[in-house]
């Protein structure tokens, strides 16, 4: 066995495209030629439902095209009547501090989205009041929509448990904030109740070419 290339592949140039060459057509039987490389743009789009949601300003938006595409985003789920562990108000207040810490980039290239888990109650009007109560600034949208749509979006974004019983219990909902640099396909997340400076640092750390401190 050739030990140097035992993985059966050749190293490809470090800065070459991440694409891979398909196997020579003549060496592959007809039925096996079913794999096709997906262009990055299509892979990015396929990751998200492009569902129609409504903002707290009453505007109709599409999840991918209008909210996520080409942006750095922070996304969490909440509902205005959160009474279980009553963490939603704390999370929203915490994210308001995050918004202030992120500064003027919010609304420019960074956007924040809070999607309701209770779309029947949380109409755009209710969400607008809620946003005002937390002194939410420009660049942070509260979102609602058709009940099934919101549920599909929740699962699409992974704010779901593998245990279906817990998953259906809204009072135990996922208190994460997920952040991503969509064009770079970098996605991560942490608790929405993490220290605001931690959330801010986590977002900045994902950005390319940043001198990083150690310590």
């Amino acid at each position: 066995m050739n030990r140097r290339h035992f993985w059966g592949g050749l190293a490809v140039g470090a800065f070459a495209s991440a694409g891979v060459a398909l196997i020579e057509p003549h060496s592959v039987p007809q039925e096996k030629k079913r794999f096709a490389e997906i262009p990055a743009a299509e892979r990015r789009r396929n990751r998200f439902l492009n569902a129609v949601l409504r903002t707290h300003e009453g505007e109709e938006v599409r999840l991918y095209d209008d909210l996520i595409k080409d942006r750095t985003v922070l996304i969490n789920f909440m509902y205005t009547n959160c009474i279980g562990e009553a963490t939603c108000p704390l999370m929203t207040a915490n994210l308001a501090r995050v918004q202030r810490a992120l500064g003027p980039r919010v609304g420019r290239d960074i956007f924040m989205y809070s999607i309701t888990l209770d779309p029947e109650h949380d109409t755009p009007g209710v969400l607008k009041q809620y946003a005002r109560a937390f002194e939410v600034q420009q660049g942070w949208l509260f979102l609602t929509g058709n009940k099934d749509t919101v549920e599909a979006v929740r699962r699409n974004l992974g704010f779901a448990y593998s245990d279906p019983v817990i998953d259906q219990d809204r009072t135990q909902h996922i208190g994460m904030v997920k952040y991503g640099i969509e064009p770079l396909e970098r996605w991560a997340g942490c608790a929405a109740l993490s220290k605001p400076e931690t959330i801010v640092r986590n977002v900045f750390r994902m950005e390319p070419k940043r001198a990083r401190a150690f310590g």
Partner: protein
Amino acid sequence: MRRNIITSDTRRREKIVGRYMQEIREIAKAGLSRRELLKMGLVMGAGGLAGLLGTRAFKPYWAHARDVFPFISPPNTPFQDALPIPPVMRPVTLNPEPTEHPNPHPAATERVPHGVAYVTGFTEADRPAHQRWEQFLPAEMYESIEQPVSNNFYPAVDGVPPSTVWTFVERSTGAIGPLRIKARYGEPVLHRVHNALPQENGGFGINKTSTHLHNGHTASESDGGPLHGYDAGQFKDYHYANARAGFASTHPETALNGRTVRGDVRETMSFLWFHDHEHDFTAQNTYKGLASFYTLASDDILLDTDDETTGLKLPSGEFDIPMLFMDKVFGPTTGQLFFDLFNLDGILGDKETVNGKIQPFLEVKRRKYRFRLLGGGPSRVREFFLSNGAPFIQISNDGNLLPRPIERKSIRLQVAERVDVIVDFSKARSGDRIYLQNRLEQISGRGPTGNIIAPTNLVEFRVAEDAPDCAFDVTKQLLALPDMNARIAQRRHWKFDRSGGAWSVNGVFFNEEISAFIRQNTAEIWTFESGGGWVHPAHPHMEEFQIRTRDGKPPPIYEIARKDMVGVGENVIGTRNSGEVEVFIQFRDWLGDYPMHCHNTVHEDHGMMILFKVVEAVQ
């Protein structure tokens, strides 16, 4: 598509998924051809999905399986490709020469094999000065490059295109990871790691890395902690003293087999690994391929010598084979390695890979072998069996020699746990096929159900001709355990929990603050606790520990060992919850910050980690 969400109890749901998986296994057993499977819609793809949903027999179960796997990988033909044997890295001369402080010179031009990334001009990332540099000047140096590599996990016969993975590539030879560094006690190693990863990630991963030597008794600046990462275009020199714990504190010198060495001989390690540990991206980058082996020989005390004619006479050379087990998912229409970015519970794959190949085979001779088994995560726990019912002779736990060998019919391995086992093929007949199997049921990233089910074959051993055997004596003592009689300076309790739907330790989500300041050269008792419903493999860096009690009682015999990992929670042992583990741990010789975290890397990346800092004792 209408989703059929079952709101009944978990147990029932598990049963349904189990039935689904059973059905898949039965179909596989019936030996239906790929064409027939295609017809039934079992081969995914847009048409496949529709076909599956339209196939009556499968319809009721599909919704549940979908929650377990985001989709089903293309089918593979098992046992087509040989198990890749990790290439042993070759020592090199580094240019520029490594330095105590970050290197003032950029990487020099080297002649490199075709395909190896161009790293000339890369500069060393900022870092604190190496501790004890003069004391442990590097004796052996290695150089690798983190870069994209094309690897086909599938055999050619399946027609699935290769995936682009990120892995360690040896700069001088172009050898591709998983690599293996063979280090020796008494010979400090310096490993220069260049980050030549592209910004474009093919869907997941980040081109910032921090290489952690798992179980290394290593200075903080070379430990590869989560906040020590660096960018593409940089390199970092990782300095591994390869000195036994206690060398600058409790045990300046000890002796074994007539040889006197620095440190406590009873802290001798054998089997470590290194993998990316970048904050928030450990699961993604490790899954993408940034993982390799580091084995540590103790020929200085004639123990585990990497030579089967000396010391313990353990199987060596071609008979000493490390195996990295990682379960993965491949896109049904692309054939590309896929990572579920938004999963929070833990990630499972439907294809079992070993050293980068799905279900490989290994030709073995009729004699003893040493297999080093490593669960690479992100979230799968396995229980290994041999298909012929033969036992494993377990000689290590977490890669540390046990007091004496233990014979075991099966071995359960948490994420990042390691065992060394001796498997004896001398009683098998030439031509026999024996399988290394996993029989532990796991249907979600939360942890295994604890049930032993029908096997999944991981490796096929093809028994070939005779070969002279090694003289390893399974009845002999291996290595005594260090004593635990040091004065306890502090007790700490770490509770792994889900708080408000996020992962926490003691109710706190990971942040950059230090959760514990620990005086250097002291001993502590740590308790790891987890509620039910989840398994959390706990892992403190810096020094290994010993388990004092599990749920208030002595641990099982195979856990009477030096450990750096311990499973806490549901179904850790059998089908029982084991929620509290108390360990004895010391913090000797080095200084600086280190993490302690859950090694279900999905949990780790979502908050389940703390930092502690070892500080000089103030007199």
